[in-house]
């Protein structure tokens, strides 16, 4: 990571001990923006699998809107969060879980 001339590095304010900081920030912002109870939203990185999984949890009743009709919103969230993860140089999975 020493002399990679990449604009991703310049914007990376979070220390590298966190996996996929951009993706986590983006995911948190999106989900908090669409639920009724933003305070109940958490995003956790599970690094035990083949590639990092971002587990999204939200308050009771909010999961429906996060997933959307026929999973459309969930799929849009995945698309955008994966774009963000490319800034972190990782490929990620995203899971939506009910509390």
């Amino acid at each position, binding site marked *: 990571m020493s002399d990679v001339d990449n604009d991703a590095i310049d*914007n990376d304010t979070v220390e590298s001990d966190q996996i996929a900081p951009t993706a986590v920030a*983006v995911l948190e*912002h999106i989900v908090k923006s669409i639920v009724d109870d933003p305070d109940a939203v958490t995003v956790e990185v599970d690094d035990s699998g083949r590639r990092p999984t971002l587990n999204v949890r939200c308050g009771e009743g909010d999961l*429906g809107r996060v997933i959307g009709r026929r999973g459309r919103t969930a799929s*849009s969230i995945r698309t*955008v969060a994966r774009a963000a993860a490319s*800034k972190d140089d990782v490929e990620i999975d995203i899971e939506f879980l009910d509390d």
Partner: protein
Amino acid sequence: MEWVETTAKTIDAAREAALDQLGVAADEAEFDVIEEPRPGLFGRVRGEARLRARVRPAQVRPKQERRRRSKSDKSDKPATSETSDSTEESSTPATSSTPKSAPPRARRQTSNKRNEEPTMTNDDRPESTVTPDEVGAAAVSFMEGLTSAFGSPAEVAVTVDGIELEVTVTGTELGLLVGPGGRTLNAVQDLARVAAQRRLGDHETRLRVDVAGYRERREAALSAFARDVAEQVRTSGTARSLEPMTSSDRKVIHDVLNEIDGVSTRSVGEDPDRRIIVDPA
């Protein structure tokens, strides 16, 4: 919300023509069959199918229903039969093989009535008080938060023209937000709609998001391409089939070629493989 009216030999064809005119996917539109096609002798069509369609107003599902849904997926069907019916309906192509289709007509009207019912919202936010300006402000704040989470400094602005809202994002490092073929941008726009329109219970506005002038450039490129194709078709007299495109891209092509004499356009196939065919007129 504006209705468009189309006629064609079958209900299917009329429906697809309407979707192209509206520039939306099938699940974003609603239809009313005005006239069924009347079959003549030997399968010849005597009367054309006529229908009207419009973009389905964005809707908030009542809170209670969402709760019930998330608790047990099994009770899904009885609890939300109305909702699933309407989604089902929009994805089911109108039956062209059975021209006596009273059932589809009935179903369409139900879904219509449902949209007009103001009692849908037992949400605490009174939907009628949401103004286009408020929806625009919510969309701007969503996009500001998103670009800052991406670490891409950007300017976000909104123009409100009646019920048409256009959010424009400008900055230097926004390529990731557009993505290959604008796919990420389409997802971003989708999420902005959920965050602004649906969360505020807005049913009226039409919201578009453009990043780094992408849609404008895309539209210009598509228009130029469409003119080239029209020229080829006119001089060669041979029809040409284009690559599959999204409904909004197809709308650009249809609109451009409608203005040009000597060619006509139609769409064939089902999304996401739906494509335009340019015929010599």
